[in-house]
């Protein structure tokens, strides 16, 4: 049943998000072409004596800026669409359909979490693809494609790998875990706020949800600061003085990673605990307190 729920939730989101992402890609390509044309024009000096071309260049530039703004705005739109879907299917009339399906409340929540997380990952990949397109084709004035940046980037990776090798495994794993946990954390936090908003108020659900969001963030902020006090003390005691002998790359890596890692692990731990708490609270409220209008 969970698979069927995910299928339908994913499909419902795709109805709006597929066109949105196609638009993001299209905007990127247009902006890239515009900037590529502009850089080539100014580089070759064609424009200096031509008023028409100059006007054209200004218009091009203007369109490119608009496109870039549109791309960033679309990221907010994606989050909005995901949370609006959740709100509609749980807190509005569609709730009568969702909550009478022969599934458990936790299956409903898992489905909403997994489908939203999948779309956020897709969104990240599309934005990364846009960045690659832009850097490759929009930043070179002499060649068709600018591969220099990527050569440097992969050069850096292979250098780091040669120097540190297996030392990089743990940080990479931790980083990936951190990403997954923080995506889940952010989704679950907003879900919980929307649910609390719906339970607290019949008329001003969204307003109550926004208020709850600020409230939860404040409490979480306080908890995190308190939890970090012992760690900060330890950090200041152990790392006040940098070692006097100059360090090589490996030593520097150990020094920095050793200082940061406890922070990293602590914040992953806190996030996981909060994710469980958000999920549990959402489940409890949906099952026991929600009264659809």
């Amino acid at each position, binding site marked *: *049943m969970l698979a*069927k729920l995910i*299928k*339908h939730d994913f499909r*419902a989101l795709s*109805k709006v998000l597929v066109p949105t992402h196609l638009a993001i890609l299209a905007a990127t390509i247009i902006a890239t072409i515009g900037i590529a044309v502009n850089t080539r024009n100014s580089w070759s000096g064609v424009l200096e004596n031509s008023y028409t071309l100059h006007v054209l260049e200004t218009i091009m530039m203007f369109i490119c800026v608009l496109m870039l703004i549109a791309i960033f705005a679309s990221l907010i739109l994606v989050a909005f669409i995901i949370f609006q879907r959740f709100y*509609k*299917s749980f807190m509005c*009339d*569609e*709730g*009568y*359909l969702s*909550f*009478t*399906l*022969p*599934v*458990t409340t936790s*299956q409903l929540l898992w489905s909403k979490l997994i489908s939203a997380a999948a779309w956020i990952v897709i969104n990240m990949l599309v934005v990364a693809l846009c960045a690659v397109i832009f850097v490759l084709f929009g930043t070179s004035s002499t060649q068709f494609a600018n591969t220099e940046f990527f050569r440097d980037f992969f050069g850096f990776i292979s250098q780091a790998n040669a120097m540190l090798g297996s030392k990089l495994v743990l940080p990479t794993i931790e980083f990936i875990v951190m990403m997954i946990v923080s995506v889940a954390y952010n989704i679950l936090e907003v879900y919980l706020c929307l649910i609390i908003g719906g339970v607290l108020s019949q008329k001003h659900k969204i307003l109550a949800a926004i208020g709850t969001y600020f409230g939860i963030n404040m409490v979480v902020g306080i908890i995190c600061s308190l939890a970090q006090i012992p760690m900060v003390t330890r950090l200041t005691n152990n790392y006040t003085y940098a070692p006097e002998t100059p360090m090589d790359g490996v030593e520097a890596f150990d020094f920095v990673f050793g200082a940061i890692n406890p922070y990293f692990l602590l914040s992953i731990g806190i996030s996981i605990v909060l994710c469980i708490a958000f999920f549990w609270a959402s489940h409890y409220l949906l*099952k*026991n307190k*929600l*009264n*659809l209008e």
Partner: protein
Amino acid sequence: MSLMSEITLEYKSLDKYYGNRPVLHNLSVALPAGKIIGLLGPNGSGKTTMIKLACGLLTPTHGEVLICGKKPGAETKSVVSYLPERTYLPDWMTVQDALNYFVDFYQDFDYARAVKMLESLQVPAKARIKTLSKGTKEKVQLVLVMSRQAKLYLLDEPIGGVDPAARDYILNTILTNYNEDATVLISTHLIADIERTLDEFIFLQNGQIVSYASTDSLREDMGKSIDTYFREVFRC
């Protein structure tokens, strides 16, 4: 089938409060299988709350509600077919999407029957829910709900929004489509329209059951129709 047969829906000394406001008070009733039962009462008497409790949309403050002996959950929801008074289909869906949705989630859904009913009500399968009139949306939902072979049908104001011609069709649909062993609980104000379909009726007032009897006994013993009786009991 006798009245003492299997119990489909049972409320056991149930209280329901919204905050401090009592909506249902010490409600106890057991509804047998194989009957069409009218849930009748003035506005705000707790009809919808009673139905929502049986769907698992609300939890009782005290007491319990049982469907075929089980508390509401995924298992009971697979045998309960519920028609809310709201239009609950996502508006981006087409009628066909909604059919596929029900096929996916409800094993007891009879796809062929649903298609046939939609055709006779002249609802176009390709139309988006968004573009349908309120009455047509209600027809689609009723078709979806009545195309299931459920054990318990909970119909909250099923005929309120449709024209009298469609009303007759829908009542016939309910009569001819429901499973012989199933219980149908219909809440409505339109008693006169629905009277002839009912085997039994419940009068609900201020969250308590005033009367629960069979339609025949009312007619035979008191020589009254439910409609007349209702007007007497709930005289303003």
